[in-house]
């Protein structure tokens, strides 16, 4: 299973923490598409705490965290 953690506005009408069968997805981008998130809206993607690209591969047991832009002062 892949653990998905969504933050800030990505949580609206979605779960904060979700799980997807690792056979269903190959890249972080597949997860973004699965949730109907516009890839352009993803400011930060972390895989197991490491900065990652949406095109990076994911494997069983990974934790993928997705953040929208947050930058106000």
């Amino acid at each position, binding site marked *: 299973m892949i653990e998905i953690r969504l933050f*800030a506005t990505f949580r609206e009408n979605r779960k904060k923490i979700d799980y997807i069968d690792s056979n269903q997805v190959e890249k972080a981008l597949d997860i973004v598409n699965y949730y109907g998130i516009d890839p352009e809206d993803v400011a930060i993607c972390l895989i197991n*705490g490491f900065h990652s690209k949406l095109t990076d591969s994911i494997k069983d047991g990974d934790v993928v965290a997705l953040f929208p832009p947050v930058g*106000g002062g």
Partner: protein
Amino acid sequence: MRYSRQTIMECIGDKGQKRLSNAKVAVIGAGGLGCFVLNELALAGVGYIRIIEDDNVSLTNLNRQFIYKESDISNSKVKVAVNYLRERNGLVELDGVEERLTEANATELLKNIDIVVDCVDNVETRMVVNDYCVDKDIPLVEAAVNGLHGFVMAIRKNYPCLRCIGYENTKLKGVNEAIGAAVGIVASIEALEVIKIIVGMNELLYGNMLMIDCNDYSIEKVPLRLSDECRRH
């Protein structure tokens, strides 16, 4: 007597209070986060605060930037903030700098500073501050807020920075959403982290991104890793 309610805290004490009074802190940005942070640091007795901000007060600031009044509109934020804070704690040395912090002036504007607090509203300045503090190994407390969501990080040389998480690629869209009650929560955590670093407390945010969700009132620490691709590490 002034600080007695905090010096009786075991984690602060007289020793911690002395550290606060000896500390030199730069707060970059005197907007939403900055107003709350400046107030908290001045009231707690941080001895020297440099306020770096080049903006003037506008009507849209007044829903959250409590330091400013209607009669301050169009006036320099730095000047108004210095006067406001001076009246609240005359023991604090306040140094107002009416300039925008850039790569070119960062060394000059952040000279002799022990801790930097980032309260700006744009990615470009955040990255300048991040790079300077990582290069010089100066503790940086970073925060940002949008609507009901915000984050706080503590950064220094041997810990993950904004570049480590790819923050430089963040593209902010349109006008930032902001309500004072939520901005204040994020800013208070940012100010508390500064105080904890100065006093020498444990349980700091280095290596983590604290995500604050004022929609469901949850707070989560997200562990971060140093990135091989980071230009600063």
